[in-house]
C-alpha cells in the first residue's frame, strides 16, 4: 500500500490529530519566546558543563 493512501482512520482522527499538532506547535512557540524573554532579562547564558571556562571560575583575589 503506498504511503500516500489515506486510511479511513486518518479522516476519523483528523480533528484530534490537528488539535495535538496545534498544541505542540503552541508549546514550541511558548518555549521559544520564554527562552528569548529569559535571555533578555539576564538569565544564565552558560552553566557548568564539565569543561573549565575562565568566565565561570572564581577570581583569585590574592
Amino acid at each position: 500500500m503506498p504511503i500516500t493512501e489515506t486510511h479511513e482512520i486518518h479522516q476519523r482522527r483528523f480533528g484530534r490529530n490537528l488539535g495535538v499538532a496545534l498544541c505542540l506547535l503552541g508549546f514550541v512557540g511558548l518555549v521559544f519566546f520564554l527562552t528569548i524573554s529569559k535571555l533578555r532579562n539576564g538569565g544564565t547564558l552558560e552553566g557548568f558543563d564539565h569543561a573549565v571556562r575562565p568566565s565561570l571560575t572564581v577570581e583569585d583575589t590574592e
Partner: protein
Amino acid sequence: MSDATANTSTQDQEAQFGDYVALLKPRVMSLVVFTAFVGLMVAPVGVPAVVGFAAILFIALGGGASGALNMWYDADIDRVMKRTQSRPIPSGKVAPGEALSLGLWLSALSVAMLGLAANWFAAGFLAFTIFFYAVIYTMWLKRWTPQNIVIGGAAGAFPPMIGWAVATGGVAIESVLMFALIFMWTPPHFWALALFMKSDYDKAHVPMLTVTHGRPYTRRMILIYTALLVPVALGLGLTSIGGPLYMAAALVLNALFVRGAWRVWRRDEDAARADAYGAERRLFRFSLLYLFLHFGALLAQSGLRTLDMGGW
C-alpha cells in the same frame, strides 16, 4: 489503543479532541485562570509578560490535569449520576487508562514547565495542589465525609497563592487571605447549589451535607460560613493589596451576601418549594458574582495603585 481496536471503534464512540479537553474540566479551569492571574498581577513584583502568560497557562494545565485524574477515579460514580453520565469516560468516548495517563503526564509537564518558566516554589505549590485535589479530595474526602466540600475547597483556593508565588517566590499575608477568601466562599456557594439541585449523590454514596445532616442544618451552615467569610474579605482590604475601591466593593458585596444567606436560613422547605427555591438560586448566582467582583476589585485596585490613584 492498538490499530485493531481503533479500527473497530464506531464513529460515535471515537474520542475527539474536545473530549480530551472536557477531561480537563474547562469551566473549573476558567476560575483557576482568573484567580491565578489576579494573584500574579497584584503581587508587588512584576514578571515579564511571556513568563506571566506561561505561568498562568501551566497553572491552568495543572488544574486541568487534576480534573482528568478526578474523572478517572470518579468514573464509577459519574456513571451513576445523571449530571455526569455524559462525561468522556462514562459515555465510553475515552478509556479510563487514557484519562489517567493524560492526567499524570499533564501534571508532570505543568509542574516542570512552571518550575522552568517561573520558580520551583510555585511549581512545588502547583504539585501540592494537584495532589490535594486528586488524592486528598477525590480519593479520600469526597466519599468519606460531608465536610468534603469544606476541606476540598482548598484545592480551588490555591491558584491565587500560586500566581503570587510566581511573582514573589514566596507566601505573604495577602496571598494567604486570597486563599482564605475562596476557601471560605466555597461551602456556602456549593451548599446553596445542593439545596435546589435535585442531585443523585445519595445514589452514588457520596455524603452531601443536605443528605447526611438535613436541609435545615445545611441552611444554618451556609449562614455560619458566610459570617466567617466576611472578616476574611474585609481583612484582605486592609492589606497592601487592598484600598478604598476594594473596600467599598467588599462592603457592598458582603452585605448582600449576608442578606442572601440570612434569607436562605430563615426559610423552611415548604417556603422554598413554594417559590421554586428562588432565594437559594439567587444566593448561588450571586455567589459567583461575589467572587468574580472581589478579585476584579483587587485587580482594579492594583491598576489604580500603579497609576498612583489608589491604595492605602
